[in-house]
């Protein structure tokens, strides 16, 4: 009350340049409204925290470790990179690089192999963000001599002691993550922000497809757009559905079929238009329409 000094939150916000990142997030990522809202909240909190520190109202580095839960292909890695950008612009990390690791990068194969491996990954991520994909694989309760536990211990220690140097983001399926946290309470208490990624709706998946095609200078013919709508709806009901990643794979296969069709077109000369357009048959040839995904090659789950 006694301090008449005013604080221009708006100006600080503009200065930090996170508005740009948030706008980019809005532009480039279709849907994901709850995630975007959550990211905005976190950004606001961090900005206010930073101001508080500047005005002597607090000095502790806040815990920044996060967990991203959601089904495959819902944009966890992409949002992770944006998060690195936001944290960097707010000055919580020294560079906006993100190192993505999985169990294989952290856990060794024999005694004494795990600690150096984990430390090396941590060192590479220092100053930035360490993104641990499918973090629950670190913990294998069925094997009590599993080296994952060693990696977990090192991680916990670094997450606690070197908060200035490193932000850890754990990512994976929601239910398995919950089980992982339940059996490793140390992680839960060290993670400040839990962000849940919802599945995409069919409409969102279609806009994602159009965005992906546009990036590669392709487009659907009107009939193909219709066919793709049917495709998405059929594909969502089938197993191994991986949201945006399934869409990407479907488009890749459609491009393959388009190229084959162009090769077989011998009755006329091709135009630039032809090279750009994906026609309905290329979508309809998918095995999703005939017998389902089980008949198809299993997609590599990343």
């Amino acid at each position: 009350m006694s301090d008449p000094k005013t604080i221009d939150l708006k100006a600080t916000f503009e200065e930090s340049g996170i508005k740009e990142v948030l706008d980019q997030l809005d532009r480039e990522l279709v849907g994901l409204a709850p995630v975007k809202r959550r990211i905005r909240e976190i950004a606001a909190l961090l900005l206010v925290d930073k101001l508080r520190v500047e005005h002597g109202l607090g000095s502790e580095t806040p815990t920044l470790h996060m967990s991203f839960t959601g089904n495959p292909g819902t944009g966890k890695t992409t949002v992770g990179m944006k998060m690195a950008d936001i944290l960097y612009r707010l000055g919580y990390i020294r560079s906006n690089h993100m190192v993505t690791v999985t169990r294989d990068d952290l856990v060794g194969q024999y005694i004494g192999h795990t600690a150096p491996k984990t430390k090396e990954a941590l060192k590479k991520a220092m100053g930035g963000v360490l993104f641990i994909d499918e973090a629950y694989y670190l913990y294998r309760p069925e094997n009590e001599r599993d080296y994952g536990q060693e990696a977990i211990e090192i991680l916990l220690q670094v997450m606690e002691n070197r908060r200035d140097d490193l932000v850890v983001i754990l990512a994976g399926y929601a239910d398995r993550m919950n089980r992982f946290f339940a059996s490793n309470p140390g992680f839960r208490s060290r993670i400040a922000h839990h962000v849940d990624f919802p599945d995409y709706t069919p409409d969102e998946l279609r806009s994602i497809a159009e965005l992906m095609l546009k990036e590669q200078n392709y487009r659907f013919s009107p009939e193909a757009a219709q066919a793709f709508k049917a495709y998405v709806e059929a594909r969502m009901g089938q197993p191994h559905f991986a949201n945006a990643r399934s869409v990407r794979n479907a488009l890749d296969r459609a491009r393959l079929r388009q190229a084959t069709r162009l090769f077989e077109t011998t009755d006329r000369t091709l135009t630039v238009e032809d090279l750009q357009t994906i026609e309905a048959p290329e979508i309809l040839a998918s095995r999703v329409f005939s017998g389902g995904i089980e008949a198809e090659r299993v997609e590599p789950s990343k």
Partner: protein
Amino acid sequence: MRLTQGTFSFLPDLTDEQIEAQVRYCLKNDWAVNLEHTDDPHPRNTYWDMWGTPMFDLKDPAGIMYELAECRKVFGDRYIRMTAFDASHGWESVRLSFIVNRPAEEPGFALERTETAGRQQVYTTRSYAARQPEGKRYG
């Protein structure tokens, strides 16, 4: 006698902040920064023991400063130097090397003169510290 060698041999010992600044410079140039240690101070002793593995692909000095702290915990009574290796084609060698840790007491060197045939003199530099076996030389 204070041992000097490497890039900043004419300067006083660097503080940790200054070391970190040097590391940042090295990383900016895409050099891999490594730590080496020894307890044989002889100037002709070029091959020091390496601390851990070479640290390629690091983006931030924090990882290297962490390893330096670890190395000091174990070999705080020895000489530790930091080397920056440039892997780019045509260089493929160490670009920067400087001492980051030294023993509390450095007894220095003795110059031995040996007379050989024809009254010729042969000189040998011998470190006082190296009279002890390896591992027991300082402190």
